[in-house]
């Protein structure tokens, strides 16, 4: 029961029954499938029957360019040590994904965190709307790509103003000015980079 045929077993198991958009074997212990949003629940329950009882993680990836979220479910089987990642693409504007509470009870807090960080709604999970980590948060969900922490920080937290009185100190020219110019340049590159 070495790990290679585990991966083949999985591939055969999933690809026959489900329309798999993309499969990727990261290494002998990790495999990821991308399936349609509708089939996720059936696939997860089948994997669970096969032995993948543990829901290791549930989160989302924000593809802002394609205006989509990618939900990622990682399940793990203790007998056949393979991490299976189930990925689906859901719409970004109205992100709704049915909760997998009936299959994996443990997803309650993951879904709550996903809602808090990405704003994805999970009907079926009773308290997914509640606040989990962020206290008194008054802005858009922070892990969305279009959220700018720098702006938030500047807006909320005053920055210490330094007075440049010690430009010339006992004869040596202060390097303060070129330091500021370099910081400015880095910032520009940072902003342009992700456009």
């Amino acid at each position, binding site marked *: 029961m070495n790990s290679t045929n585990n991966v083949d077993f999985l591939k055969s198991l999933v690809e026959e029954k489900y329309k798999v958009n993309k499969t990727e074997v990261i290494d002998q212990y990790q495999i990821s499938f991308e399936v349609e949003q509708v089939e996720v629940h059936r696939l997860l329950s089948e994997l669970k029957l096969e032995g993948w009882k543990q829901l290791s993680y549930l989160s989302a990836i924000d593809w802002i360019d394609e205006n989509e979220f990618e939900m990622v479910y990682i399940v793990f089987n203790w007998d056949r040590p393979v991490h299976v990642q189930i990925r689906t693409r859901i719409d970004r504007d109205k992100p709704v994904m049915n909760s997998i509470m009936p299959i994996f009870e443990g997803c309650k807090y993951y879904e709550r965190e996903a809602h808090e960080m990405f704003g994805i709604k999970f009907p079926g999970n009773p308290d997914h709307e*509640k606040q989990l980590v962020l*206290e*008194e948060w008054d802005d858009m969900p922070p892990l969305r790509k279009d*959220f700018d922490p*720098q702006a938030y*920080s500047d807006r909320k*937290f*005053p*920055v*210490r103003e330094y007075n440049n009185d010690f430009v010339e100190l006992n004869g040596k020219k202060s390097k303060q000015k070129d330091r500021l110019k370099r910081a400015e340049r880095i910032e520009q590159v940072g902003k342009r980079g992700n456009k």
Partner: protein
Amino acid sequence: MESTKYTQPVALSKKQVDRKWWEIGDFFRRNSLWMLMYCTGCCAIELPPAMTSAYDMERLGMGPMATPRQADVLLVTGYLSLKTLRRLIYTYEQMSEPKYVVGFGSCTINGGIYHDSHAVINQLDQYIPVDSYVAGCMPNTEAVMNGFVDLIELIKNKKANGWKNYHTNNAWYKKNQIDALGEVRIKDEFHQ
């Protein structure tokens, strides 16, 4: 040089007597500074070397104490996220007067490497009065010891009255706190 001729002792006013008592109190206060064992951030790793044999904080009369009621010095070691800041303010208000705050590391000075994060405040001074800072991103132990000696000097020269400022311009501090944190004492599902 003052003259050494004997002069009639002049009766001190009530205020002056209190002043004298306060100076004596300062001597005791600066020679037995108890720090509160509350390591808020990553600079706290610098405290054990300060206590052990190389630098020995105890010879300055400083030792760790468990509760804010007993402690004099609040060491703010490292970055301060919003949640930690709320607890820090609550603890600071529980400490008995006169109390001092020492800011460790650049995160308390100008936000340090987390200056652009949405969760970390950039300047501790806005929220609670800080008496002395120790610069450096993870300041060296000598720097930490210097910070303590600076604090002792400040107390000696009667300049370490951050706790007085907290009383005098309390409104300003409170406003800053509300701006940054929204509300210091939160009431939610986890805090009935």
